[in-house]
């Protein structure tokens, strides 16, 4: 493995199912060590792209390299470098929790005596030791999510691919999983994440690609995406009921109800916010409270993915 190579390099990936094009010429680079978010609405091609990376589906066209290893020609090395936590639980119902990890390690060519200690460490780390000898059908949804992550890590991959890793888990566990992922990334594991929880991507990912209709519509740093959409919504509570607002351009489009004291203005830049407040005070109002709503990743996402 060469760290100079990107963790994932996708070039011209196409996947067609008959007339349907699920992935339409995606090219993508994820640098080693990155925490990368791959976002998009349902049916955008996220899981299909992941399937192509890990070899769960046959590409129609294009090439994929994992740390410089081609997934078709050097598939054994490439697969050893990847850990996958898929969206749906797909555990082997005949195995105990401990055996799920031991057998997955075995499929990756690791002997039980070599991996035994790591299995116990992962069970401990993901708080599954007490359930080690029960079948997966007898553990909770949150424990299954943790087991998915433990299984993906058992062969010490350099790239962790997570397809909706926190789907259906409560807030507490979600925050716990976020922390685990941060630690893993800090340890040098590249993380490629898809999620529908945009605050999750905003909190965790350094770089993001947004995909729609099988094509990438935006790809840059999370901060860059947010900075490109700096517009703010201003909400001002005034000292008395509003009859009308001053006819200044910056307040054009302001939202208020006659007789109420709240006025909201969308899409302001920082200097326009100051002008709006000044205009209100000039009109004799006293500003009692001010609130700003900055654009979130959700706003950016909706803007980019709405047709």
């Amino acid at each position: 493995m060469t760290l100079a190579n990107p963790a994932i390099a996708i070039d011209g990936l196409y996947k067609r199912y008959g007339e349907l094009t699920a992935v339409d010429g995606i090219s993508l680079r994820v640098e080693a060590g990155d925490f990368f978010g791959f976002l998009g609405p349902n049916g955008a091609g996220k899981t299909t792209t992941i399937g192509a990376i890990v070899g769960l589906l046959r590409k129609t066209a294009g090439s994929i390299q994992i740390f410089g290893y081609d997934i078709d020609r050097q598939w054994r090395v490439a697969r050893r470098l990847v850990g996958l936590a898929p969206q749906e639980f797909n555990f082997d119902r005949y195995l105990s929790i401990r055996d799920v990890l031991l057998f997955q390690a075995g499929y990756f060519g690791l002997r039980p005596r070599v991996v035994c200690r790591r299995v116990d460490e992962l069970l401990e780390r993901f708080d599954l030791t007490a359930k080690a000898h029960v079948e997966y059908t007898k553990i909770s949804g949150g424990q299954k999510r943790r087991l998915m992550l433990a299984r993906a890590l058992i062969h010490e991959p350099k790239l962790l691919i997570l397809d909706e890793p926190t789907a259906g888990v409560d807030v507490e566990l979600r925050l716990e999983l976020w922390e685990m992922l941060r630690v893993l990334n800090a340890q040098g594991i590249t993380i490629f994440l898809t999620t529908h929880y945009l605050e999750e991507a905003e909190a965790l990912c350094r770089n993001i690609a947004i995909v729609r209709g099988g094509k990438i519509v935006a790809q840059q740093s999370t901060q860059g995406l947010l900075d490109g959409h700096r517009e703010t919504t201003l909400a001002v509570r005034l000292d008395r009921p509003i009859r009308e607002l001053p006819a200044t351009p910056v307040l054009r489009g302001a939202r208020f109800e006659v007789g109420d004291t709240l006025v909201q203005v969308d899409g302001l830049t920082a200097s326009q916010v100051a002008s709006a407040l000044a205009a209100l005070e000039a009109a004799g109002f006293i500003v009692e409270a001010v609130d700003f709503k900055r654009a979130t990743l959700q706003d950016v996402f909706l803007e980019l993915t709405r047709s």
Partner: protein
Amino acid sequence: MDTVNYVGLWTVVKREIIRTLKVINQVIWPPIITTLLYVFIFGVAIGSRIQSVQGVTYAQFLIPGLIMLQVIDASYGETSSSIFQGRFMNSIQELLIAPLSATEIVAGFVLGSLARALAIAGIITVLGFILVHTLPQNWLLYAGVLVVVCVLFSALGIIFGLMAEKFDHLAVLTTFIITPLVFVGGVFTAATMLPPFLRNLELFNPIFYTIDAFRASYTGQSYLPIGVSLAAIGALALIALGTALRMVATGYKLRA
């Protein structure tokens, strides 16, 4: 890097053996009990009225046929249900994302199936010795036919496990093809007991070759030359194995 993932291959075999042990009441004891019933009802009760067949008592004649019957059923059932369940539950993805080649995956399933089939064959062989005092005379032939038959039917199990869209489809091959062919293929009758027309018809039944060759390992006698039967079963096993390998390698109903 290594060219064969031996640990991965062995892990697949081990997983299949664990699966067999987890459902032992469905897959090991029923064929043993069924065999015992056949031995007592057909072999001992009815067979006592039949003169010797191929130089042995009818009960002794039955044992190799019954072993074949259960080995065929076990081999096909093991791989077909395991593959289908893996597809249905998506757990087969654990294998598909691992550094395992199609050959390693198929070999793992076939060897896992062989383990189940040999366990059943072994138990019936011991029971045959205890109950009707018969043992193979030619162990090499006994083992050789068992292995080839198991490869043939476990490969067929993989093919049908991949093709099936629902569990019901798996039963189609057993109910409408394998079971009838096994029952008319010489489990209960020697070819010499049949009228000439049916005897010639048997030559189109592949199961007939397996039972005829396997029984020769017990009685030392066969209707067809053993080489012909072995060649026929071997050829079928190679075709089935090749087809199963090709289907797994191309990801047929495994990789979208």
